[in-house]
Every structure is written in C-alpha cells, then in structure tokens.
C-alpha cells in the first residue's frame, strides 16, 4: 500500500484545506469581532454552492460555458454568501448584540436550521442532492504517482487570491484597521469615532462572501450538493479556526490547512479515524492550548 503520506494525499489535503480556509476565515473574523460562534456560517457556504449552481445554469443558457461564465458564477456565489450573511446579522444577530451570549448562540442555531430546512422544503431546490455541473473542462495532470486535476490548482489559487486580498485589506486599509480595532476593544473603538455596527456588518459580509466562494469550490471539486452539506464542513472549519487560534486570521488559514491535511491522511489510514480526527484535534487543542497555535491568552481582571 505504501505510505499514506504520499503526494496524492498531500494534494488532496491542500485542496480540502483551501476550502476549509475560506470557511474558517469567516468564523474567525466574526468571533474576533463579536465573540459569537456563528453556527449558521456553514450554511452560508451551502447557500453559495446553490447560488453557483443556479447561476451556472442561468448563464450557461445565455453565455455558454468556459472561463468567463465560471468567473461570473464565482462572483455570484460570493455575493449570495455575503448577502445571506449580512441579512442574518441585520435580522437575527444585531438585535441581540448586547444581550447575554447564549441568546445569540441559540439564534444562530435557529438561523442555521432555517436555512437548511428552507432549502430542503423549497420545491425548486429540495432535499435531494444534486450533481454539480462541470464549470470548466476537467484536465488531469500526472505528476509522478499523483493525479492532479486543474480543479486543484483552481481551488488553491482562488483561496490564495482571496486570502491574500483579505490580508492586504486587514493590514493596509482603513477598514482593516477599524476591524482590528473593534476586535481588540469595542468601546475604545467607539470613542475613536469608529462606527462599530458598520464594521461588524462589513465583517459578516466579507466572511459570508468567502463562505460563498468556498461553496462554489466545494461544489466543483466534490460535485454533490445538498441543503445539509454545510453542517460537517462548517464544524470542521470552525475547529480549524480554533486550532489556529480563534479570532486570529493567519491562524484560521494555518489551522485550515493542517485540518485538511490531517483529515486526508487520517481517512487514508482508516475511515473511523477520518471521521473522528477533527474532533480529536479539537479535544487535544482545548486541553493543551485552548487559545490555539497563534492565539493569545486573554486575562481576567479580578
């Protein structure tokens, strides 16, 4: 059988990690800014996938396939993810912002349930899984023992571009500075004249857009979508964010790739291990270093 740590598995792991990274970033940014574990985030990813599906069929009829269509579909998937995230924030999270944390968490669960069951129930969508169309013709390159498809390159490239863009945004732009300020100290930010609610809205928007992009990539790469597809990846991406340090943007990226690789290797070894590895990682992180690899310790003033 040979070692499980071969090139093919590494490729698969990086591919999976790219998708997890895009989801994890949304989780970590939202947590960093409002200290909320947004359980509905995985469902924004699902909405992105379905939006991409719908967009493809729409555009294919008019414009035909190929790279331009794929690009438009990506934009639309991101828009859908961003839109649903912003909506959820406005309607369900914002009113509970200053109430006890539990109520926000329960509401997030409600939003998650709503999205999943609505997409199941809605006659045009339905609960049955759908096959995702080939946006671009699939080409497979043989690199040594590994079969690498152009989808791998697309997944990693799109993720890299988006992550790079986000990093520049956070480090260099006014919005990014404001986001960092608000996640450090909301009250001080208000006193500095920052419109905190605005920044929160932007954070949800960007996080949702990334989730939408991830949904498209996942639909393309693992071509099956269903309304519940967001539950497990969402959970695992969240664990990845915790692994890297919840609230920490580079941490989410790091954690996601570690998670993608770990899951791929574990699955190759044994399917039981593969199913459970994410949670084992979670337990170990929380026991050994709850703040994650790149996270900081927060002190309590007594």
């Amino acid at each position, binding site marked *: 059988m040979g070692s499980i740590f071969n090139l093919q598995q590494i490729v698969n792991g990086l591919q999976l990690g790219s998708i997890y990274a895009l989801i994890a970033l949304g989780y970590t940014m939202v947590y960093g800014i409002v200290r909320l574990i947004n359980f509905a985030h995985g469902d924004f990813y699902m909405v992105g996938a379905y939006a991409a599906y719908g967009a493809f069929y729409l555009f294919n009829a008019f414009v035909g396939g190929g790279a331009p269509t794929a690009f438009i579909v990506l934009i639309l998937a991101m828009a859908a993810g961003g839109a649903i995230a912003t909506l959820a924030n406005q309607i369900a999270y914002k009113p509970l912002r200053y109430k006890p944390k539990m*109520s926000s968490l329960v509401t997030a669960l*409600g939003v998650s349930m709503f999205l999943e069951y*609505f997409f199941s129930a809605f006659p045009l969508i339905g609960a049955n899984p759908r096959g995702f169309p080939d946006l671009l013709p699939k080409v497979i390159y043989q690199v040594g023992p590994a079969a690498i498809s152009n989808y791998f390159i697309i997944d990693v490239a799109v993720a890299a571009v988006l992550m790079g863009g986000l990093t520049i945004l956070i480090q260099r732009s006014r919005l990014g500075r404001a986001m960092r300020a608000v996640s450090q100290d909301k009250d001080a930010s208000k006193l500095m004249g920052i419109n905190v609610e605005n920044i929160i809205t932007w954070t949800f928007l960007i996080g949702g857009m990334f989730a939408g992009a991830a949904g498209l990539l996942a639909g393309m790469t693992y071509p099956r979508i269903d309304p519940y597809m967001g*539950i497990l990846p969402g959970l695992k991406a969240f664990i990845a964010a915790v692994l890297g340090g919840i609230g920490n943007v580079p941490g989410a990226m790091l954690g996601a790739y570690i998670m993608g690789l770990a899951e791929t290797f574990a699955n190759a070894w044994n399917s*039981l291990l593969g199913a459970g590895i994410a949670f084992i990682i979670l337990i170990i992180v929380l026991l050994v270093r709850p703040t994650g690899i790149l996270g900081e310790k927060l002190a309590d003033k007594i």
Partner: protein
Amino acid sequence: MGNMKLPRLTIIAVLLYALIQLLSLVGVLNGYFLIIINQSLIFVILTVSLNLINGITGQFSLGHMGFAAVGAYVSGTITTLILKLSPDKLGNYPIFVIAIILGGVFAAVVGLVIGFPSLRLKGDYLAIMTLGFGEIIRIILNNIDYVGGPRGLLGIPKFSNFTIIYVFTFLTVVLLRNLIQSSHGRAMLAVRENEVAAELVGVDTTRYKVLGFVIGAFFSGIGGGLLAHLLQIAHPTQYGFYASALLLVYVYAGGMGSITGSIIAAFALTFLTQFLQLGLDSLTNITGISFGSEWKMVIYAVILILIMLYRTEGLMGMKEAKIVMLEEEKK
C-alpha cells in the same frame, strides 16, 4: 415532623395521571395523543437534566444528547442483545427498570470522564469541547458493529409505556427540584451567578460543576433509555450535535433555571411540532400541492428566532411556579 401532609406536587401528579388514563380509556385521547404525551414526558426529563447543567450551574454543555445516547445504547444492549427480553412477560419489567438505571449510571460515568477535562474551560470553549465529545460519542457508536453501527440498534422491545415514562418523569422532576432547592443546589446557583465569589465563600466550584454535569448526564441517560424503548430503535444520528442543539432550544424557550419552564417548553414544543405536521398535511390535502415535512421545521426555526428576539429570557425566565416550589422556600 408532626403532620404528614402529602405534598401538593405529588397529589397533582397523581390526579393528572388518573385523568390521562381515564381519557384514553374512554377514547377521548387516542393512541396518537398518547404517543405525543409520552415523547413530551421524555423530553421533560432530557430538558430538565440539561437545565441543571446550563441553567442552574451556568455551564454551557452542547453535547447533552451524547449522554442520552449512552443511556439508550446501554439499556438497549441489555434488553435486546444480551437478555433478549420480551415486554409481554410482566416479570421482565423490573429488569427493564434496572437496565434503564444502569444506562443512567453509565451515562453518569461518561459525564465524569468528560466533565473533568472540560469544566476547566469556560463559556464558548466549554461549549465546543462538549460539542466535540458529543460528536465523538456519536462516531464511536456509529462504528461499533455489535450495536448495529450505522444501521442503529434495532428491534428494541417496547417496554416504555405511559405509566413507566410518567413515573420516571415525575421522579426526575421531584428529585431535581429537591436538589436545586437545597443547599447543594444553591451552591450550584452560586457557581452560575459569580464563580469567583462562590469560591470566595467556601464553595468548591470545581466539585459542583462536575456534580451538575454528572447528575445531568445520569438523568439524560435515563431519558435516552426510555426513548429507545419507546421508539424501539437507537440510532447514532438521533443523538448528534443537532439533537443537542435542539435540546438547548427547549431549555432556553422554557427559561434557564426554571424546572416549570422546562416542563412547559417540553410539552409545548413537542406538541407544536406535531400540530405543525398536521397543519402541513391538511394544507397539502386542501391545495393539492405537496408540502413536505421540512416546512414544519422551517416554521419551527422561525418561531425560535422570534422567541429569541422578543422574549430572550424564555417563558418562565428563572422563576418557578408555586406548585413546583418547596413549602419553606416560598416567601
């Protein structure tokens, strides 16, 4: 202890039991209603046991159904796989009761094992730790072929009838009520209110956090066992993160820390789910368009969000109805 007045709660419970039995005998309450009542009662047990952990002790457990799973599988294994009991023989019922209690004990042990490392953490971290453990339990059960693996444990004998479920529910409510309104219960409340202050008035907060967890796990195991013997199946997907999240909603809707609230919520939400289904069915019949059962969950989710937005503290908040309170604790 001069006059032995029968406690009000017991009297009301007995009367209620008699009423329900009478109504079902006469035919006013049909089998369908009884099923919903049975499920509601089991959810009372599950909700109240989670309320002890989240509402009273103020910890944040997101894996509570994992304990129910342990109870379901342990008791189910005993009655179905090991002893192969039949509910037709009256003599088997005491054995069934013991199996249920054993399920609770195993769940409590699991609670202890999980509790110790988890309860060092606080808030969100505790939540995701318990979530992780709950999922691990589900995955492990999914992979043990002896208890059916992904197919689940099938053919569990139907030992859970109205009387047994009712008695277990009554005992759960009374015992937990007694605990909460005792000095030990107040120690748990102190942990919830202000953990630092509790330590600084001599309360061993670690002990009480773990205790709440273990006792909550025990009763959750009982609930799981009863459920398995009602539905005649135990399946890993019944006890995953989503089920735990749903249970959290029950606790929240009723009011964190209110037993009365949990009882009302368990009944209200279980009945609501059924009524929504009925409504959907008639809508389908009337309009001819097929309204799938997912729609009821959509409505459920919307109602939930509305409760969270407009009555955040839940139905009862932290208050108890007079009936549930102990005599000397009333003002």
